[in-house]
């Protein structure tokens, strides 16, 4: 292959130290980077929430001003959705999918690294807004014309618009990567219907991502055209219709919530069988339900707009489609219960979280079905009833599953168990805290308390439950703190874990903990679902269980690290700030981006003579 003598530093070969992490293209390291970064951002979103709960603890408090409160609820939601749940899920996709399908990495390792750095820089653009002129303040859904230049001349919305577009690039790149990886890199014999459920949900989620993100990208682009170049997309004085923003946003926004929950459902579908010592009940039906949810998720978006005045026909249609989507969701729940039924249950922390997910997600789902009736929603919309629903499905749902996943796969990633005793108390405080914080919000909503208000008058009848909810939020925070303690404690002093500490079922447990760089010394040949279980208890001996012996894996060449992914990402970061502040800087960013793309294209996928690591 032709090589140019580029006037640039030689491609790195070392995997050690900070430079090793900066240039890594190993999916396991990238997964770890996503996980750590996302968890820190999740905590920052939690702190934003705690400020709000402190402010709302009693009527007419003045802990924060209304202006700051607006920024708090905007940043809390934007952080939790885009910088919390999504990248935490991405951490799992990155780490696990190649291991579950018997591959050595993803289809495009450098693109994978690029996705992470772009995500990090998008997160920086959003979070640094607090310190650079003001955070966005118009809600995570940014309804126009409140986000327009006339109503919102400050720089906060600019950070939001640009930051989210950068994040969209990261998500798009990552999802394309996972689609190709899952379709094209499965071990021999692993047909689609033999894949682990987490990988299946990753596939569905990735399709949702590549099809939904372009829509919000255009909405943001149009808003940016209005704000930066004086166009009229959402300017009522020019005849624009603000409802167009809402439609474009929710055409993205509804698939987005399935993007948030499907990976969590995938995690739960892995944990339950292991700790029930039974295969997932109704695997094909669970797959079909996941696919149906992904498909039907495109048909319900205007249920976020029931009170906008779309008319009875529109409202009826979307009410019916929304009720319909509860069906595949319910089917999954029955299958999870069926998995546990008659099983030999072990109540590890991971299992507690998985069961907690089912309970709390059911509650969130029930309030969701209540919203699906347009007349009911007329009362519930924009009240705390919706806030209750959101948090039951996203915290009681997605976050609980993610915690469960961390307890489940931490031994694989580190070779150590998270402490189960601390884990139990972590779970108790998180589960209890979740319910104490969010259950009262149902009452507050039904009692008429609107969303996004920075305070409320005495005598509205809202005092008691707000107090309870706030106390709950601090309980919840304490639970998260226990987790953080557990994490660091276990990293240092955790009990050793082998390759298969839970007696599990899928391929990732057939290799050492932590896995070697090349994952599998020998690519397994798969004969059915749960291939490891089948081998342990069935008899087929074609999943080589790695012994970690010296010389094993010798001769496996992995692609070398590269610094072009982060370099190219930096182009996006610089360009983004340039767009907001000074166009010459945007040009510079564009130049860095182009140089990065060229250099990346000219760098071979694999060097002809890789050095031994």
């Amino acid at each position, binding site marked *: *292959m*032709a090589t*140019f003598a580029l006037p640039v530093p030689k491609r790195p070969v070392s995997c050690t130290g900070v430079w090793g992490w900066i240039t890594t293209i190993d999916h396991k390291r990238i997964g770890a980077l996503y996980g750590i970064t996302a968890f820190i951002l999740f905590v920052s979103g939690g702190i934003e929430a705690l400020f709000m709960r402190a402010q709302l603890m009693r009527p007419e408090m003045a802990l924060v001003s209304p202006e700051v409160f607006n920024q708090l609820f905007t940043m809390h939601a934007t952080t939790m959705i885009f910088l919390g749940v999504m990248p935490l899920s991405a951490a799992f996709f990155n780490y696990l999918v190649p291991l579950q399908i018997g591959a*050595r990495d993803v*289809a*495009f390792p450098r693109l994978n690294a690029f996705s992470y750095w772009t995500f990090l820089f998008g997160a920086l653009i959003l979070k640094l807004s607090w310190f650079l002129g003001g955070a966005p303040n118009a809600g995570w859904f940014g309804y126009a014309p409140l986000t327009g230049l006339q109503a919102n001349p400050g720089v906060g919305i600019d950070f939001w618009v640009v930051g989210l577009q950068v994040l969209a690039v990261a998500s*798009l790149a990552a999802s*394309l990567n996972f*689609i*190709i990886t899952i*379709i*094209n*890199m*499965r071990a021999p014999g*692993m047909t689609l219907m033999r894949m682990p459920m987490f990988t299946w949900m990753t596939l569905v989620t990735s399709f949702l991502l*590549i*099809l*939904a*993100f*372009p*829509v919000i*990208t*255009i*909405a943001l*682009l*149009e808003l940016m*055209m*209005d704000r930066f*170049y*004086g*166009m*009229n*997309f959402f300017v009522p004085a*020019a*005849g*624009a*219709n603000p409802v*167009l923003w809402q439609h*474009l946003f929710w055409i993205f926004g509804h698939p987005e919530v399935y993007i948030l929950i499907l990976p969590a459902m995938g995690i739960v579908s892995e944990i339950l069988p292991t700790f029930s010592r039974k295969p997932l009940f109704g695997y094909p039906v669970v797959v079909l339900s996941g696919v149906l949810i992904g498909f039907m998720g495109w048909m319900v978006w205007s249920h976020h707009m029931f009170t906008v005045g779309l008319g009875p026909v529109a409202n009826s249609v979307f009410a019916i489609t929304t009720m319909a989507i509860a069906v595949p969701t319910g089917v999954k729940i029955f299958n999870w219960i069926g998995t546990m039924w008659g099983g030999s249950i072990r109540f590890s922390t991971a299992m507690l979280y998985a069961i907690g997910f089912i309970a709390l997600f059911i509650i969130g789902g029930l309030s969701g079905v209540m919203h699906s009736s347009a007349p009911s929603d007329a009362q519930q919309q924009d009240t705390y009833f919706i806030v209750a629903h959101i948090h039951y499905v996203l915290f009681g749902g997605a976050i609980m599953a993610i915690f469960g996943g961390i307890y489940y796969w931490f031994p694989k990633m580190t070779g150590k168990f998270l402490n189960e005793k601390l884990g139990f108390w972590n779970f108790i405080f998180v589960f209890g805290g979740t319910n104490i914080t969010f259950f009262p919000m149902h009452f507050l909503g039904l009692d008429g308390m609107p969303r996004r208000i920075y305070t409320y008058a005495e005598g509205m009848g809202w005092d008691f439950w707000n107090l309870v909810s706030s106390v709950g939020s601090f309980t919840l925070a304490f639970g998260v703190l226990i987790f953080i303690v557990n994490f660091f404690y276990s990293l240092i002093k955790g009990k050793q874990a082998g390759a298969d500490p839970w007696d599990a079922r899928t391929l990732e447990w057939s290799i050492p903990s932590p896995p070697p760089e090349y994952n599998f*010394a*020998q*690519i397994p040949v798969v004969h059915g679902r749960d291939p490891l279980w089948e081998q342990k208890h069935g008899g087929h001996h074609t999943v080589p269980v790695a012994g970690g012996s010296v010389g*094993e*894996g*010798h*001769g*496996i*060449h*992995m*692609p070398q690290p590269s610094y072009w992914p982060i370099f190219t990402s930096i182009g996006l970061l610089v360009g983004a700030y340039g767009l907001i502040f000074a166009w010459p800087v945007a040009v510079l960013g564009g130049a860095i981006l182009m140089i990065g793309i*060229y250099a990346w294209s000219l760098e071979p*996928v*694999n060097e002809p003579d890789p050095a031994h690591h």
Partner: protein
Amino acid sequence: MAAAHAEEHPATTTGLDHRKLLIWAFLASDCMFFGALIATYLVYYGKSLVGPYPQDVFDIPVTSVSTFVLLMSSMSMVLSYSALRRGNIKAFRIWLLSTCILGATFIGFQVFEFNDFVQHGLTPRTNLFGSTFFTLTGTHGAHVTLGIIWLLSMFFYSFKKGGITPAKHLELDIAALYWHFVDIVWIVIFTVVYLFGVFEGF
């Protein structure tokens, strides 16, 4: 025994190259992208409070010529790829350069047209028509421009020894798919924006 080398073209589950799958998945995504812009244009069609309106500025004969140019660029693109597959490197380069020139001609027409519209009082800030029209066709034009840069890069790279060979046709195939996609988006835009522009607001 354990020697599975990371090859240039390792075995894949479907037998297809990763990059080919990637471009098709990306184009599926791009359908949603352009669809949103076209939908915005159509939602706001006929809703501008002030002119100029489409009938005031569109010059269908001129745009037909630029449409013809872009269609021909798709033909030259596929002939370039075909020549490469057959091993005719000279023809491959000529057709590839032709594609770039035709693409640049199209952009030239766009620039001319945009200028013409501005002379007639239509800018992106004037009204809804201006905003939606210029953003839609501007985004399309940006895609074309990126495509020209991509193809031109491949043209120059082909002069490097062993840069592009019949065996390495996949890289050109992917660039060609992108180029054709940009052409079919224009087919939609020409019909829905220009030809329908004769109506005052359907």
